[in-house]
Every structure is written in structure tokens, then in C-alpha cells.
């Protein structure tokens, strides 16, 4: 049953109320015991302006790895794009020294499309059809397959769209198809809470067919020998799980946020409405994995409308040609950081079954499809928030670039137009995330590539020093 009452999760600043009021209601319908682990993948467009993103406490070398404790730093010492996350610094790992090297080594399509595939699948893109595909599944789907509850949504794919350019799907199925995303809070709400609140007409019809197939199987199974029965059991157990999921979603009990409006005037409002839904979905254990794609923000929302009304083609492409555009993209990255910070705060205000907050049992990985708005893949600067059960958070980590992959660089940065080395391949981050979520894998996507000079580049294993 859906309880459409107060907005459960708009409790930022009301910590005491948030910690006590929803807890009773939630605990009434959540499974008790150990809290589940959860994953959120956040992907914004156009990367980060590296020079203004990075932290460089004095005395630290560029040619060797280092780390700094973020707790020891003041907010003023944070870079502008990282400063909005200051309040969550103890949960953070800011990663400096990665590249989307394999995207540079791949060919075809568009650097955005290629970047999304590589960033989140760790594998090559497939441009041999009319739609861009991947060659293996994305990290969110990989994790969802492992941690999903049988009677709930395995994952939720969302995108915060803007009028100009939408949030692109960042989730890819095991057979390389882009999974469509819900691009309005209302659509997301309907997907999460709709079946339990409106009679689930479609789900009822779907379940009828599953029930028929199950009945056919049960009759047939009695005529099969052991091996045949085992084979069909393995198939129809999964059919049964699918039926349970549809039924579970139709009958769940949850203290949900109110049904959102059909439209929101502001990008930030849409973002916050999505975070309410994510918080409630996690709090009620309706899903454990979310992929949140952030479409391009209107320039007015981060104060750059005097430069252009288009982030992509008005500002991002020209960051090395025009200092004001570099500064605007710094504001843009900072604004996304403010949004991510609000997402973290929202999850901190949702109580979990173990007495802590949902955020304490959530891992957020915030990345992008590019290193920067110039279409560069060289400096890839994801931020991890949460996942403290697996990671030693509260640090800024640096690795020097010494991987033998050539990366394209604007001539304003390197006159030659190319860097002979790249940062660590980001696949290692995906492995770290997968392992943190309980998967026993040593690679995600590709296992190795060859650099432009023919060198072997190993992509297996997690990032060092995260734990």
C-alpha cells in the first residue's frame, strides 16, 4: 500500500524530525536485519575543468602517488567544484589520476557516446547498427544482477532532462542495448510506486501470462526426467521470481513522497524530486541500484546565461579558447556538486533498518562521459561518496599519469596536441565498485588493451589505496 501523505524526504535541515518520524513507519514494513548495500551511479555531462577541480596542497609531488586527509582541510582549501561536498568530506574519495584511456583507444561514433559506454561498461562501443550499443553490461546492471531483491525492482534508471539535451541512458543491458530511463519525476514515481497505488493494470495482465506459463510448466514437469526437470526448473524459477517482483511491486507498503507534478520549471527542482524518489525507494527497499544521468543544465541555473544559452555548444567546447568559458564550466561542475551534496543529505535523512541512515549503506559513484568539455578523456575525476564498508573514505587520492596510452590534449595545454601517457584506466574504479558491492570480479568490461605504440595495458584489478 502506498501512503501518499507528507513529503517524506524533504527533511533537509530537520534532522531530528527526519531521524525519528519516518523511522517507525519504515520499520513497520521493511525487512528487519542487516541493511542492504545500495549503489547510485551519477553521470553528468562534459566532465570537469581539471585545473580548477584539482587540489594541490603544497609540497606534494606530481610524479608520485599521494593522498591527503580531507578532514584536515578547511573549506577554503577545497577547489570550487569540490567545495559543495565539503560537508560530506568524511564520506568522500576524490580521485585524481584516472583517464578514460580506453575510450581514446576505441574509434567510431561520437566522443560523448563512446565516453558513456566506456565510462560505465568499461568496454568498447558498438557502432555497427543505427543506435549506439555497448559490448557488455554497465556497472549498475552488473551490480543489480548481484544484489537485487527478487520481489523488487532490480534497478532504476533515471535522467534529469533539459530542454536542449537530455540525460542520456548510461545503463546498458547484458546484450549491449541502452536501457531507457525515466526522464521525469512523475514517470519515475509511477514506475516505483505506481503499481501499488493504482491497481497495476498492466502488471495484472503480465502476471496472468506468467501464471499461465507456470501452470503449463508444472504440468509438463511431471513428465520430464531429472535432467529435463532441472533445466526447466532453472528457467521457471526465474519466471516465478519475475512474477514475485510484479506482485511485490503491486502490493508493497511504503511511505512514499507525494505524486510529483508533471513538470517542474527548474532543473534543480527536477533533481530534488528525483532524490526524494530515490530516498523513498531505498528506504522502502524497492530497489537497491539507481543510475542517475544528469542532462545538460540550462545556463541560467549556474549563472552563465550571459555567455550562452547552451552549455554544450556554447560553452563546453571552448574552455581552452576562452577563460570565461573555463570559469563557467567550473561553476557548472560546482552546481552539479551542490546537487550531489543534496542527494547525500537526503539519503542521510532516511533511516535504515540497522538504525543508521540509508546513506551509511549506500555507495555513490559520480562520473561523467568525458574528462572535460573539450571532448578530452585525459583527466577523469570521479568522486566516490559512501561505501565506507569497503573504502577508507575522507581522502583525496592522486596517481601520476604513467600509463602508455596516448591522449589527445588541446594545444593550449600541450603544444604537441597529445600526451604520451594517460592516467590509470578507469576500469580499475569499476572493479573497485563491483568488489565493494560484493562481486567477486577482477575486471569489468575489457581485461586489457594495447596503447597506440603497441604497449600492453592491464585493466584488471581494483584501484590501489582505496581501502
Amino acid at each position, binding site marked *: 500500500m502506498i501512503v501518499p501523505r507528507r513529503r517524506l524526504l524533504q527533511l533537509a535541515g530537520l534532522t531530528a524530525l527526519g531521524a525519528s518520524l519516518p523511522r517507525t513507519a519504515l520499520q513497520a514494513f521493511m525487512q528487519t536485519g542487516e541493511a542492504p548495500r545500495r549503489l547510485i551511479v551519477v553521470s553528468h555531462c562534459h566532465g570537469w575543468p581539471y585545473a580548477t577541480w584539482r587540489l594541490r596542497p603544497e609540497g606534494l609531488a606530481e610524479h608520485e602517488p599521494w593522498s591527503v586527509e580531507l578532514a584536515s582541510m578547511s573549506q577554503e582549501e577545497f577547489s570550487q567544484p569540490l567545495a559543495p561536498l565539503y560537508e560530506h568530506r568524511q564520506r568522500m574519495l576524490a580521485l585524481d589520476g584516472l583517464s578514460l584511456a580506453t575510450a581514446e583507444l576505441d*574509434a567510431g561514433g561520437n566522443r560523448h557516446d563512446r565516453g558513456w559506454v566506456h565510462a560505465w561498461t568499461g568496454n*568498447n562501443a558498438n557502432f555497427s*547498427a543505427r543506435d549506439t550499443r555497448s559490448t557488455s553490461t554497465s556497472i549498475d546492471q552488473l551490480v543489480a544482477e548481484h544484489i537485487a531483491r527478487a520481489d523488487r525492482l532490480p534497478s532504476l534508471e533515471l535522467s534529469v532532462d533539459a530542454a536542449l539535451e537530455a540525460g542520456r541512458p548510461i545503463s546498458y543491458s*547484458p546484450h549491449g542495448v541502452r536501457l*531507457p530511463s525515466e526522464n521525469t519525476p512523475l514517470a519515475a514515481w509511477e514506475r516505483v510506486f505506481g503499481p501499488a497505488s493504482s491497481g497495476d493494470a498492466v502488471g495484472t495482465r503480465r502476471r496472468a501470462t506468467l501464471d499461465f506459463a507456470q501452470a503449463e510448466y508444472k504440468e509438463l514437469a511431471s513428465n520430464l526426467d531429472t535432467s529435463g526437470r532441472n533445466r526447466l526448473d532453472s528457467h521457471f524459477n526465474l519466471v516465478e521470481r519475475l512474477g514475485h517482483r510484479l506482485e511485490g511491486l503491486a502490493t508493497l507498503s511504503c511511505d512514499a513522497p507525494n505524486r510529483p507534478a508533471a513538470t517542474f520549471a527548474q532543473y534543480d527542482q527536477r533533481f530534488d524530486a528525483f532524490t526524494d524518489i530515490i530516498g523513498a525507494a531505498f528506504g522502502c527497499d524497492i530497489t537497491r541500484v539507481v543510475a542517475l544521468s544528469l542532462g545538460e543544465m540550462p545556463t541560467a541555473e549556474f549563472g552563465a546565461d550571459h555567455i550562452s544559452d547552451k552549455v554544450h555548444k556554447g560553452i563546453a567546447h571552448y574552455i581552452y579558447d576562452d577563460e570565461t568559458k573555463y570559469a563557467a564550466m567550473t561553476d557548472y561542475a560546482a552546481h552539479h556538486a551542490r546537487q550531489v551534496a543534496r542527494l547525500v543529505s537526503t539519503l542521510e535523512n532516511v533511516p535504515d533498518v540497522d538504525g543508521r541512515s540509508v546513506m551509511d549503506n549506500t555507495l555513490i559513484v559520480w562520473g561523467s562521459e568525458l574528462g572535460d568539455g573539450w571532448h578530452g578523456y585525459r583527466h577523469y575525476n570521479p568522486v566516490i561518496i559512501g561505501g565506507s564498508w569497503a573504502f577508507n573514505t575522507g581522502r583525496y587520492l592522486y596517481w601520476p599519469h604513467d600509463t602508455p596510452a596516448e591522449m589527445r590534449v588541446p594545444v593550449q595545454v600541450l603544444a604537441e596536441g597529445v600526451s604520451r601517457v594517460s592516467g590509470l584506466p578507469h576500469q580499475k574504479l569499476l572493479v573497485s565498485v563491483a568488489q565493494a558491492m560484493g562481486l567477486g570480479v577482477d575486471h569489468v568490461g575489457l581485461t586489457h588493451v594495447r596503447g597506440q605504440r603497441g604497449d600492453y595495458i592491464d585493466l584488471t584489478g581494483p584501484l590501489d589505496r582505496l581501502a
Partner: protein
Amino acid sequence: MRSPLLLFGLATIYLTAATGVAAAQPVKESLPPVALTPTEYNNTVADLLGFPQDGTAWPDRPPLADRISPRRAASKGVFLPPPPPPSWPWRFPEEPGSEGFEGIVQGQSPSSYQVEELHLAGMHFGAFALLSPTFLTCDGWNALSTDEQHACAWDSLERLAPRVYRRPLTEQEAGRLHTFWLENAAAYPSDEAVAITVAGLLQAPAFHFRLDPSADPSSAALTNWELASRLSYFLWDSMPDDALFTAAKSGTLFDPIEIKRHARRMLNNPRARSAVVRFHHQWLGTENVLLVAPARRAFGPLFGLTPELKIARDDDVQWPAVMGPVRHSMKLETELFVEQAIFEGDGTFTALLTDSQGYMSDATKPIYGESAVPVADSTPITKQIEIVVASIGQTKPLTLYPTRFPGTERAGILTLPSVLALGAYAVQPGPILRGKRVLERVACMHLGTPIQGAESALPPDTLTAESTNRERTATATSSATCTTCHRLINPPGFAFEHYDAIGKWRDTDNGQPVDASGALTLAGGEQISFTNGIDFVHQLAESDRARDCYAMHWTRYALGTQLDASEPGLAPLQEQFRDDDSIRELLVSIAGSDLFRTRPLLDTSGDHR
């Protein structure tokens, strides 16, 4: 009047072991039923609903579909949204596969994702029933009263159901279907009730799995209905046609003469061509040629481009625009080559491995060079291909010309650019990849897993080496640890050193004359000594080991199981194929064999060693 559900099977005679399979050789463990592969599923749905196996000829997804299954949200691209998914085919996850082949029971394991896709596909295609030109048994559906619609719908469902199950329904099945229909008809509008009922049928085990519950579990013999399905999925990748159903109903299919007659009939149908082509794609992995990535820095000049893109913010759209058609051309010429060799040429294994007539497009002309000569008065073949360039999905025509290649440069399928480019890195050919493919797929020699770190020990894939590719590979694999396997793998790989990473013939490598000579001993003891790849493939075509291997792949594929190489039933097929060399006759012989007409038996003695 009797229900057609039951009439469909009244005359069926279920054969038992005593009726004619005394010569069958049951193995000790039973094998589970084979599930439809993604291709088989889609082809079968098209046949069931009377639509062509061509997505462009299907109607758009009807609004009714969104009332019974989740709407399909539009996908998004950077600049333009990609086209909506086609009504047909449904895109399923690939099977894990077994030695590269789909439809082998040991390579089929369900996943939650696959099961959900099967469910969604069933709901999707169920909504097409009322658009089908063959489903309804009445006219003017929309003008009928509800009662008339219900009567017509049930009549139509009764006609459809045995074709979905590929056999007559049992009385219990017919009863459950009727109950299901009545429940749906009572609960929903007629069109939804029909769609939901058809969707249920398409998710039933009898549709997804090839099995017949009326088979006698103690008997080795397949029922006639099982035989009809096995034959049609073997040769057509789809459900039986009316002639096969009629033969199954009359109980004559178990007769080897009769089943061979049907096999010959089916091989003359164009459907057999695509099924035979699919086998060869799986045999050599050539569908994956759409993902090969030769480097612009190595091959750009061959296609009139500079080796490197001028450094700029914008991405390289030139090289993908070249390589997209090249990859598709490689794939298509593989398909046309197989069709021509097996259905229009000699139809022999020798022709498959040695024919020097192939197909070339403008895209692949730079690879073949001036020595390739289009066949006079031949008919070009134009196909539509899809590529993405700079985020924009495109459909464009690609024309291939029947072409004669110099016999000194090209001989058969193993020297097609598709096979060669798959056995290569971005810059240099991969003799290890090529050798491994030949040994495993053509000679059925299993090499095991490379030792850890083997890949990283290979020489850099670079244009600026000081020695030949062969020398570098030989050096990298010369340690005692490596030679155990590489003394086998390297020679058949080096045989193709006259072909660069994109499959173009070359006389020199890094300024040195190419050395493609070598010798190897195949499993079984046959020794092959060769001067180059052309010499090598001609000897492979004559090799008993290669012919036996090819016959075994086909037999496994036909039966849907990883048959043991020592299975006695294989030997007669292999012996015949060694003698007559005919691929089509091999397929006919497989269809008529005891192996094909029987199932592995459960050892009821309790001895399950």
C-alpha cells in the same frame, strides 16, 4: 465437432524404441531439452503470425501493446534520438554458447535478464496477433459483436496453439488454454484478451523448449513431432512448415528415407541459406567482424586518409565512416561466399576452403587491390547496412560484386578478410589468434587456457618494429613454458602472414619477404607441411581431420548437444563426408542418421557414472 487442438494429433503415432531404433546407441546420461535460440525465437514468431522474417515488413507496434506490457520509452542520442526499436526482431541477450555455437544445450543457461526479455517479447508479440494476416479465422473483426469476437478468437486460438507448441496439445493443455482464454475474455476487452492469451502461449515451456511430453521416457526414439522440430530448426532456424507437420501427423518422419526427402526439400528452400550461413558465422566467429578495429595510423593511407587525424576538438569522423562499410562488407561477403560455395557452386568442403571467387564492394576494394576482377555479366548484390557516424545512426546501401581473386592469393573462407581481420590486432596480424582458430574450429584440437600473463608477453602491436611480425611472435613464445602449446599454435598462424591485419595480401613485412611456410601435425597424426596459407588451406581441405571436425560440428549443431567425438554414430557420417565431400549431402545424412532420430537415454539401472 472435435477440437482442432486434439484433431491435430489424433492420427499421430508415437514410435517407441521397438519400432525401429534398435541400431541407436544410447549414451548414459539424459540431456535436457534445447531452448529456442534468439534467432529461432524470432523466426518462429514471424512464421506463427504470418509475417515475413524481415523487420521492415512488420507493422508498427500497436497501441494495444502498451495496454498489456510496459511502454517502451524512447532512447536518446547526443544530437538526435535513435530510431525506435523495430517491431521485429526482438533483441535478446546472446546465449553463453558452447564453442561459439548457440542452440547447444550445454551452452544454454537462463538468466533473470533473459527470462524477463522472453516475457516482454511474449507480451509484445501477443499484441500483434490481431494484426496477423493468418491468425484470425473470421473476417471483419472490428464489426463483430463481443460474443462473435469471442467465438472467432477461440477458434483462432485453437488453430494457433498446436503450431505454437509444434505438436498437438494434450487434453489437459487444451483445457488449461480454454480456461485461460475464458478468464481473459471475461476480464478484458476482446482485443486485450486475445493478446494476453497469445502472450501466455509464447511464454509456455512447450514453445520455448523443444520437447514433447507424450514421448516415452524409456524410449530412445524421438516422436515424429520432435523430429519435425529438430529438422526444421536444424535447416531453417524456425518452426516446421505445413509439410513437416503433415508428415509428423502421418507418423512417417521416423523413416530415414522420408526424413532425408524432407531434408533435401528444405535445403532447396531459401530459408536454408540463412540457416547455413548462421552456422558458419558461429563456426568461425565471423559475425564479430563488425567489432574489429584496425587502426587508422596503420591503414588510413590504404583508404586515402592521412595516418593520423589532425589534432582538434572534434572527433575523427573520417575513419569510422570508412570502417563502418568495410566491416559490414566483410560480414556480407562472408555470407555470400558461404551461400555461393554451398548452394550455387560445388557444394563441397573443398570449395568452401579453396574457392577463389568471392564478393567485393567499393569499401573493400582497397583491401583486395587491382588483382581482384569482377566476374563478367554477374549481378551485383545490394544490401542495406546500419552504422553510426558521429552519433548519427544511418542506413545506407552497400553493393557487393561477384569477384574472381587470384588463386595464388585467396583460397576459401579462411582467406576472407573477415576471418583474417578477426585474427589480428589494431596494427599487426595475430598469428596466435589465427592459429588458435584454425586448430580449434577447423581441426577440433583443444588447446586449453593460456597461462596467466601470456597476453602481456606478446610483442608490442606497433608499426615501428625492427623485425618481422613472425620473428617477434616466435621470440615472444620461445620459452620452454610457451612452446608446449605454441609449437602447435604458431605454424597455422604463420601460414597467414601474407595477410596484414585488415586482410590485405602482402609480399613483405617490415621490408623483409614474408615467410609463411611451416609444418604441423594434426591430432590423429596427419602431417601437413606447407609453403604458405594457400598451400595450407588446400591441404586442410583434403585433410580427414578437418573433414571429420566439420562433420562433427554440424552433427552437434543438429542435435543441440556437445556430442562426444568418440560417439559411434558419428563415424558413418564422417566416413561418408570424407568420401563425397558434399556439404549438402552431409546435412541430409545427419538428418537421416540414427543419432538425429534418437535422444540420449537416462540410465535407469541407477548406474550414473
